[in-house]
């Protein structure tokens, strides 16, 4: 419900019509690039952590800090798109809220992880959290690979409770693959096909 129930102007109404009819899914997120970047990063970080445990070596830095690398292109493309667009569609705003919330919760969970020093169980909690925005995004866009990706994250989250940290990292990599990388590739292929049709 809008807090201020003001009547729509003609221009605003046309924007709404365009939004509903067009649903132009050309954003950084819906092209699938963000999904692909996050998916690859989660897989790389998980596999590096797994390799450190398996082959008993240390990289000398926390590999999970690489996740911040993903923020750079995300912020860059968001700012670039904002400049190019005259208005932002409601579904894009919805996604921004959802994924920002996810970011806040990941931050809180990292804080708990440092405070409680429970690395083994915290991986389950991370995967539980990965499932939430993935499932909701899939549901809102009626995009089954992401709905399935969310459900797989939750399944892996429960499974990780019964395994040690080394195996948890393989589960984490699988969650990155199913929740983000594969859906991202599907989105990217669809986007390319649409572009070819438009040529």
């Amino acid at each position, binding site marked *: *419900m809008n807090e201020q129930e003001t009547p*729509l102007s003609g221009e605003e109404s046309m924007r709404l019509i365009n939004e509903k009819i067009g649903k132009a899914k050309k954003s950084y997120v819906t092209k699938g690039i963000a999904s692909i970047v996050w998916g690859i990063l989660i897989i790389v970080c998980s596999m590096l952590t797994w390799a450190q445990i398996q082959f008993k070596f240390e990289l000398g830095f926390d590999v999970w800090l690489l996740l911040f690398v993903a923020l750079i292109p995300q912020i860059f493309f968001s700012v670039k798109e904002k400049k190019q667009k005259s208005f932002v569609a409601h579904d894009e705003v919805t996604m921004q809220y959802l994924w920002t*919330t996810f970011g806040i919760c990941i931050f*809180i969970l990292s804080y708990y992880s440092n405070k409680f020093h429970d690395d083994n*169980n915290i991986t389950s909690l991370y995967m539980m959290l990965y*499932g939430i925005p993935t*499932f*909701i995004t899939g549901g809102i866009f009626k995009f089954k690979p992401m709905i399935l990706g969310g459900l797989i994250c939750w399944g892996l989250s429960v499974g990780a409770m019964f395994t040690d940290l080394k195996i948890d990292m393989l589960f984490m990599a699988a969650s990155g693959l199913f929740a983000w990388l594969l859906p991202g590739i599907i989105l990217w292929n669809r986007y390319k096909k649409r572009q070819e049709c438009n040529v």
Partner: protein
Amino acid sequence: MQHEEFSPQESLKVIQNMLAKSREDFSHNDIYFLVWGWITLIACTGQFVLKHIVKYEQHYQVWWLVVVGVAFTIYYSTRVEKKRGVKTYVSESMKYLWIGMGISYFVLSMIFSKMGYENNVFPFYIMLYGLGTFVSGCFLQFKPLVAGGIMAWALAIGAAFVEYDYQMLFAAVAILVSYIIPAYMLRNKVRASNN
């Protein structure tokens, strides 16, 4: 299937109707916040009283109250879904949000059943209260829910600094500010606009 052509005026009317429907949907959602809010508040404070004051060993049994919430949610959502004709973008988004939250609460319960419940459980639940409420508030553009979500996150961080018993009270306050108070504000707003 016949394809009707709409005039600009008719298109505008359709859009206005859709927006009105979203507002109506919003008014239906407050019941979930109230039922789950009160159940959780009673369970949190009840557990605190049983554990900290009465010293009852099986203090966690109070959480069986959740079954009432689950039964109500299944019954009410099925009834409302049957009656509901047009599905709006907002109502669809809310549906997936709360299905996702429901599954997450279930998964979290399973994780803690393995980890042990006397092990910093409440901060994680409070964080999820904040998540669901904040996103709902943003979807519905209702500021008290957004504020409630932010306050819940602050309490989630604060709860990590206190003992398990007092974490229950943090959870009770979180549910009060993020579910119950915004839901009553919403109900009053809807009543006022209907009048």
